[in-house]
């Protein structure tokens, strides 16, 4: 393999090709969209597909250790003296690139079917390709500046895609919300970049990590916290998570690609990338681990109270990313990244499966209006079942291996509380995912039941099903899923089931060998509870969660009286859950209202009275002067003559008096 020797000396052109291919696709779809028509889909997919093939070809280069440095490196430009920007492909960025391009490619292909008939078909693929490019910028950069640029571009791409159906006001609001919350994170990272550049005199990862030992504890903690603000915003961690459920306003493939598989895991990437910083700051580890655990728990609890199939998946995403953040936060980097890897597959699987359902039912997303889909949509059912089994952590499925790694990792790194939270969350996860599965797929179809009988009180939905949006020009008819929608889902089943086996075997697993040399290793005392026992405990809790869901939604009595049951549950939902733990209200009270108050002060007082007032006063003075001068212009010839006489007399008087004095 020639690639084994390429990239050691700082030139690896293939990396540039991987990086720029999606951008080329985006520009082509953007510029020639109307002329490309249906071709935009295959074109956009091909750009990402080729990038994926090139990534696979680069596997050897990315994992090499020749020349003392890990992976392949490509210099791009010298930004400022001493600040060189370039691309880096090491195991961590290789993994992310492979997922972004691989899962991204499948989702592109799926979108050809899902978005067929949308009037902005080419624009959609331009945005998707642009997103892939932005994400590759983020993960392939070898320095903090490139990472920040990618970070911002990803936020922009997300804004475009959430607001893709911009004639829906709710989609526009969701896009704006996501963008604003992401910018909060961007600012955090920006400050981290400033601090790093000031302390290390460089922004390249290698230089910064090599010098990070000399930063001092407070500075390290500050940098980590600033970076984590960015990670929390992008990865939907409490309290910056509220944009993620709203982001489900975008088309379902977007939810699968951006808000499940790739973008929201950027925070996990950031912390894993900056592992040398985190490993030196136990306080930052505790903070990030605790917030990750809290997010996992809160996301799972909120997931139990949702009815919209995509919002259930959104909260499960938030919760699973909480796991990842908890893992990389406490120092179990391999575990956290492992959960990213398996989650990318099974969550894309779940979203695309839900997309099949939504597409087939003519944009119905409320699980109460579903039911009995097992017989109607057997393929979607199988897809969803594998996804649910994987996310629950049933032995043999991918989520089982990675989740246990995170939970055990929390214990090994000395956080028994996070260990307990992780186990509890696993049980709740099993409950709400099975709840979604049972309600949507078992029993009888409820699409023709009056919504109010199901307890649907939402003003937008009550009594007017299918009236929420109007993006599909062809109207809301039921579609048969095209083969290019089914094939990506079918292909995703394989890694959804099998990906976890890469992590089987502890230290000697392919997974651990892949990441040898990537993360700092701490020597840890043996955990109080051995890994096998943890697996048993988690499994017992998960099975308990499934059992509760089964008893409530899947037994014969439950499915036969489903309508009344769902109505009861909808109406009796505790207010604290329907209000999503009041996070939105709190953010509204703490940030939005003060900002609006400030706006009001500026708008009502400062602007009209000081700024506008000043301008108006100048104008009024000019008008007054004009009126004064005008009053002399009588138009009467004799008046002018009189003024001339007065003027002449004044001159004479002046010279007579002044001349006398002289």
């Amino acid at each position, binding site marked *: 393999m020639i690639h084994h020797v390429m990239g050691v000396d700082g030139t690896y052109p293939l990396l540039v090709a991987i990086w720029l291919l999606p951008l080329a696709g985006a520009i082509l779809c953007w510029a020639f969209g109307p002329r490309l028509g249906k071709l935009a889909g295959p074109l956009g997919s091909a750009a990402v597909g080729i990038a994926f093939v090139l990534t696979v070809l680069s596997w050897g280069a990315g994992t090499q250790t020749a020349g003392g440095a890990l992976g392949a490196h490509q210099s791009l430009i010298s930004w400022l003296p001493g600040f060189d920007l370039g691309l880096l492909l090491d195991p961590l960025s290789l993994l992310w690139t492979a997922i972004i391009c691989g899962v991204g490619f499948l989702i592109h292909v799926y979108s050809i079917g899902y978005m067929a008939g949308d009037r902005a078909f080419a624009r959609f693929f331009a945005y998707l390709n642009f997103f892939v490019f932005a994400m590759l910028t983020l993960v392939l950069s070898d320095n903090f500046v490139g990472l920040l640029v990618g970070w911002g571009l990803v936020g922009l791409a997300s804004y475009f895609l959430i607001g893709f159906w911009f004639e829906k006001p709710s989609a526009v609001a969701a896009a704006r919300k996501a963008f604003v919350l992401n910018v909060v994170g961007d600012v955090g990272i920006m400050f981290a970049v400033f601090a790093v550049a000031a302390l290390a005199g460089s922004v390249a990862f290698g230089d910064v990590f090599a010098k990070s030992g000399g930063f001092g504890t407070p500075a390290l903690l500050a940098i980590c916290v600033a970076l984590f603000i960015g990670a929390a915003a992008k990865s939907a961690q409490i309290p910056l998570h509220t944009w993620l459920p709203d982001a489900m306003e975008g088309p379902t493939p977007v939810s699968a690609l951006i808000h499940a598989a790739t973008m929201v895991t950027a925070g996990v990437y950031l912390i894993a990338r900056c592992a040398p910083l985190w490993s030196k700051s136990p306080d930052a580890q505790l903070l990030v681990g605790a917030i990750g655990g809290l997010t996992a728990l809160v996301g799972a609890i909120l997931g139990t109270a949702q009815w919209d199939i995509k919002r259930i998946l959104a909260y499960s995403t938030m919760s699973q990313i909480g796991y990842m953040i908890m893992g990389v936060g406490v120092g179990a980097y391999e575990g956290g990244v492992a959960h990213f890897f398996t989650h990318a597959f099974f969550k894309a699987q779940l979203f695309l499966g839900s997309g099949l359902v939504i597409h087939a039912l003519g944009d119905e997303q409320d699980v109460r209006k579903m039911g009995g889909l097992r017989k109607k949509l057997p393929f979607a059912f199988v897809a969803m079942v594998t996804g649910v089994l994987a996310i629950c952590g049933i032995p043999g499925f991918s989520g089982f291996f990675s989740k246990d790694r995170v939970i055990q990792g929390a214990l090994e790194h000395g956080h028994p509380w996070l260990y307990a939270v992780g186990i509890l969350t696993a049980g709740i996860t099993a409950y709400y995912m099975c709840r979604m599965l049972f309600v949507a797929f078992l029993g009888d179809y409820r699409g023709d039941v009056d919504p109010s009988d199901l307890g649907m009180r939402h003003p937008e939905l009550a009594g007017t099903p299918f009236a929420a949006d109007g993006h599909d020009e062809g109207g809301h008819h039921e579609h048969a899923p095209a083969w290019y929608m089914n094939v990506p889902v079918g292909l995703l089943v394989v890694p959804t089931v099998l990906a976890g086996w890469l992590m089987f075997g502890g230290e000697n697993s392919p997974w651990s060998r892949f990441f040898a040399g990537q993360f700092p290793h701490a020597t840890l005392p043996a955990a109080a509870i051995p890994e096998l026992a943890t697996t048993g405990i988690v499994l017992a809790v998960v099975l308990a969660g499934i059992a509760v869901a089964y008893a409530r939604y899947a037994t014969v009595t439950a499915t036969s009286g489903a309508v009344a049951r769902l109505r009861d549950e909808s109406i009796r939902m505790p207010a604290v859950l329907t209000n999503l733990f009041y996070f939105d209200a709190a953010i509204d009270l703490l940030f939005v209202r003060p900002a609006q108050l400030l706006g009001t002060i500026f708008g009502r007082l400062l602007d009209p009275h000081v700024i506008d007032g000043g301008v108006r006063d100048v104008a009024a003075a000019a008008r007054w002067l004009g009126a004064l001068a005008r009053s002399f212009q009588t138009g009467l010839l*004799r008046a002018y003559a009189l003024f001339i006489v007065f003027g002449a007399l004044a001159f004479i008087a002046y010279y007579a008096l002044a001349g006398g004095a002289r």
Partner: protein
Amino acid sequence: MLDVAITNYVALSATIFFIGVAGVLLRRNPLIMLMSIELMWNAANLLFLAFSRMWTNDAGHVFAFLVITVAAAEAAIGLAIVVIVFRNAQNVDVDEVASLRG
């Protein structure tokens, strides 16, 4: 010439001049106003000649000729304006011609 004190010339000149000023300010007929302006020109000429004589400097004579020339030109333009105003307004009352009022 008789020896007349210079103060008499100055007093006569001032008298003629203020008669002219009063004519311009008080009369509404533009022809009378033009004649009043002529009075002021000639008051000035009288002073030029008187001081020219007093200082035995002939420059005053030159200035008087210059003033006569300018006065002739002024009268020509003034009369032309009066004719045009009359054609347009059918009267020559200067108070009626006030369309430049701001």
